[in-house]
């Protein structure tokens, strides 16, 4: 019972709000990541955003700003490189992901910046400040608003690009906005689960939601609800077992998926 009362401690309230807000955006966007098979893209964006952390630490500006900046720049680079040089997306992602992560680690070593690497790799939501919670929430609300506006266009483009364009959907504008939204979701989620686990926040709730959903919107709503409950039960698990918060949240969402899968198999849908 002591563990449950921990839920109402200020640090825990901050963690719940911060992780909840970030995971709502990630889970909604995650539907597109599942539909468009962009899991590796999310991974690459997350890994390379570590460079932002390093740049922030080395040059002494806000690490959060560095994260968002590098994620957006990488998303735009991907967009441009794919258009201009027609490099294979998969290869390009591998280069950017590992190039970024490696460069970040080298930078930190050369400039002898001692940052809590672990916190950025696996998240550190229990240490989040009120200021950061407000930033995360504002970012998530903004992201969800943009996603709502673009929703029909993005779904149509996912179904068939040519058909969507004939219906007046602007291809480039939607692609570009989507990439920036992905960058935003990644930047917001680093604090929660760390760069190594962000993809889980994107795809697992969406994949679980897919099991029971009958419409794209239904899938997004279920994905968001699953993510929020994953955060709540993940943080309870974390305090109960005295385990790190980020991995606990991801473990719970993975558990949801397998329970859902079993339920669908048993009930036969």
């Amino acid at each position, binding site marked *: 019972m002591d563990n449950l009362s921990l839920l109402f401690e200020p640090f825990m309230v901050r963690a719940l709000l911060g992780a909840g807000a970030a995971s709502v955006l990630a889970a909604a966007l995650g539907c597109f990541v599942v*539909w468009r098979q962009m899991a590796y893209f999310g991974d690459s964006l997350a890994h390379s955003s570590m460079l932002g952390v390093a740049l922030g630490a080395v040059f002494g500006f806000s690490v959060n700003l560095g994260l968002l900046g590098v994620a957006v720049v990488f998303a735009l680079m991907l967009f441009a490189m794919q258009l201009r040089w027609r490099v294979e997306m998969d290869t390009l992602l591998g280069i950017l992901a590992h190039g970024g992560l490696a460069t970040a680690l080298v930078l930190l070593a050369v400039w002898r910046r001692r940052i809590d690497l672990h916190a950025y790799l696996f998240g550190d939501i229990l240490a989040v400040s009120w200021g950061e919670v407000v930033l995360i929430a504002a970012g998530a609300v903004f992201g969800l608003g943009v996603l709502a506006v673009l929703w*029909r266009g993005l779904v149509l483009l996912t179904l068939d690009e*040519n*058909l969507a*364009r*004939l219906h007046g959907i602007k291809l480039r504008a939607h692609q570009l906005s989507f990439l920036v939204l992905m960058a935003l979701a990644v930047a917001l989620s680093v604090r929660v689960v760390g760069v190594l686990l962000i993809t889980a926040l994107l795809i697992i709730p969406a994949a679980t939601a897919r099991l029971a959903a*009958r419409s794209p919107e239904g*899938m997004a709503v279920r994905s968001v609800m699953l993510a929020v409950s994953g955060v709540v039960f993940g943080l309870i698990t974390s305090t109960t077992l005295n385990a790190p918060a980020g991995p606990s949240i991801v473990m719970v969402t993975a558990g949801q998926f397998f329970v859902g899968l079993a339920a669908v198999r048993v009930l036969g849908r």
Partner: protein
Amino acid sequence: MTLIDAKNITLCYDGKTILDDVSLKIGAADFLTIIGPNGAGKSTLLKVMMGLVRAGSGAVVRQKNLRIGYMPQGFRANPSMPISVARFLDLTGAGAGAGAGAESGTEFETLAELAQIESLLDKPLQALSGGERQRVLLAQALAAAPQLLILDEPAQNLDLSGQLAFYALLDAIHRDTKTSILMVSHDLHMVMASTRKVVCLYRHICCSGEPQMVARDPEFQRLFGDNMAEMMAVYHHQHDHTHSVPHGAHGEDA
């Protein structure tokens, strides 16, 4: 009245010529079929005419506010997106909820009946058979009461009876609504059996005209082989005989 007028379209991609000085015009109540081997630039030409792909040189003039209905080639339902036929039609502006008002054209029920998809509306898009999927796409294309239907291999992957049914449906739509149709087709036996105008494309327009004439054209024979050309000529010959009496009912140039 010309709906789309494409003049001297040339398009190169990665140093390869896809379209070479192609001119094609489609007018009101036309029914035009483009045939040609794989990689002939047929789909690209359709996209250029719709304005989805920009031509390297040449000009495309579309009638102002032209309403185009389009069936893309090889549409596959996204396997991981849960979506019903009704919701798909909603999203494309064809659904029951998407304003069946005066200007958006056809009443949804009429449309569903015309394309024979009433029983499919609650089904997941992925669960449709090939023929069902094509009828749903057709309903989607017809929703905006188009002046022009652009169909990219609409009967692809249908079995023979499915093809027959689909082309009969297209014929009926063309006859009843006077909607212009511009179609790419691989179903030579269907195309050549009709009396519609055929354009044979292989990067440039090799020949065009009535199917019989096209089948006798040396370029057509070179592209599709002598056997195919012979078969077409024979097929059409027999066809002429059996159907020569009730002709004229078609009113194609009306």
